[in-house]
């Protein structure tokens, strides 16, 4: 491979194709199928696409490219008459792909201008409405404007988070209570017991909180090191399982952990 490809660099097969078209300086209306297919294949190999969530999308696109490529080869094997027929009767096999690419490109560019607007908007600040409760003489019933839905509620919450961004650093802030590795080790063991001694690795990470993920991970490493748990994976890309070593009682773990 001539150069390294970053996994996060592409938003999917269309994004990758646009990147290649741009880099190879290909006319989007006259895509050289052989060249782009080769390049595309090389890239998805380099990206270890099988590990990505979008693996199937990348593979379907690979099949599409191969299919178009082979269709374009067809008329060459026939005589000139056939080629004429081909031109009259059939569309260019690339048409659908081209229009998809152009459509996607439009929104990719629109996304870029949204990003610019986002940056620009970051240059000025508003303030939340003042607390006017002091002006109220009587308790008032607040009614919702229209039918509100869950998303309105989330929107309101989001607005509040933005408001809370202000003022924060000049006051003393109570940092989130961090879970210690020791505590997390105990938690992992309890979870494993509840799961019958064997659980999917991913099931041990039900949270998206980065701090907790890291702590859980470190606690697992520690547990493995102390041979309290072991990890099992049958084949590459198979699910990973965490196993609690049998025959140990809770108190033993407690003792080991507290050491």
């Amino acid at each position, binding site marked *: 491979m001539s150069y390294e490809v970053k996994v996060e660099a592409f938003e999917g097969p269309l994004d990758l194709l646009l990147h290649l078209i741009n880099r190879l300086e290909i006319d989007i209306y006259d895509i050289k199928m052989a060249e782009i297919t080769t390049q595309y294949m090389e890239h998805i190999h380099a990206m270890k696409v099988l590990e990505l969530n979008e693996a199937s999308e990348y593979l*379907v696109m690979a099949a599409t490219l191969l299919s178009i490529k082979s269709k374009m080869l067809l008329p060459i094997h026939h005589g000139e008459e056939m080629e004429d027929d081909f031109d009259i009767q059939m569309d260019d096999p690339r048409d659908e792909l081209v229009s998809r690419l152009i459509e996607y490109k439009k929104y990719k560019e629109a996304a870029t201008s949204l990003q610019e607007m986002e*940056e620009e908007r970051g240059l000025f*600040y*508003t303030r939340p409405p003042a607390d006017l409760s002091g002006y109220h003489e009587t308790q008032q019933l607040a009614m919702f404007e229209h039918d509100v839905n869950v*998303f309105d509620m989330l929107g309101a919450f989001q607005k509040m988070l933005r408001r809370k961004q202000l003022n924060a650093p000049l006051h003393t802030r109570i940092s989130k209570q961090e879970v210690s590795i020791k505590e997390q080790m105990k938690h992992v063991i309890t979870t494993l017991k509840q799961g019958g001694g064997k659980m999917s690795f991913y099931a041990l990470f039900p949270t998206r909180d980065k701090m907790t993920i890291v702590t859980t991970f470190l606690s697992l490493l520690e547990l493995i090191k102390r041979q309290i748990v072991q990890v099992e994976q049958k084949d590459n890309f198979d699910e990973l399982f965490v196993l609690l070593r049998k025959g140990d009682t809770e108190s033993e773990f407690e003792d080991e952990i507290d050491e």
Partner: protein
Amino acid sequence: MNSKMRLMSKIESLLFVSGDDGLTKKQLAFLTESTEQEISETLETMMQAYVQQEDRGIEIKQLAGTFQFVTKQTNVKSIQKLVENPTAQSLSQASLEVLAIIAYKQPITRIEIEDIRGVKSERPIYTLAAKGLVQEVGRAEGTGRAILYGTTTEFLQYFGLKNIKALPPLPEEVEGDEMEDADLFMTKFQEAFGNQE
């Protein structure tokens, strides 16, 4: 003249307390007991004056349908010192793409969004909904009655837009009905590919 200054003073008070909710011309007229015409003229004068006066740190902007006070861009550095994680909020590339599609194509279903992007888009849609930037605006007809997504007022506020029409035009429109093409694509591909095998 004096009455105009009094009106300006009232408007300043009202816009100050209403914060990022802002107020419309109609609301300002009602609250200050003046005509919408007077409000329009006075707002015009004020908006110019705030920008021109170098000792002012705020100005009036029309955002998400209302008039609101915002800080001047020149002071962004001082304010960012006050704000926690000033840049933490920016959206990911995936979210921006999905948001662009929803903004220009609304109302639109998840499947239609995924057809355009060529990848699953459940997660960015979720993130955008959770951030209050898009919401369910209805249900598509036909089987499944898929959720239709559209942008919110928060979207306008977030990107500093007066209203949805203030979005910049999409890069040159392509001839033909692309959505149909995109929808047909998979079917055709499957047929073509199936034959080849």
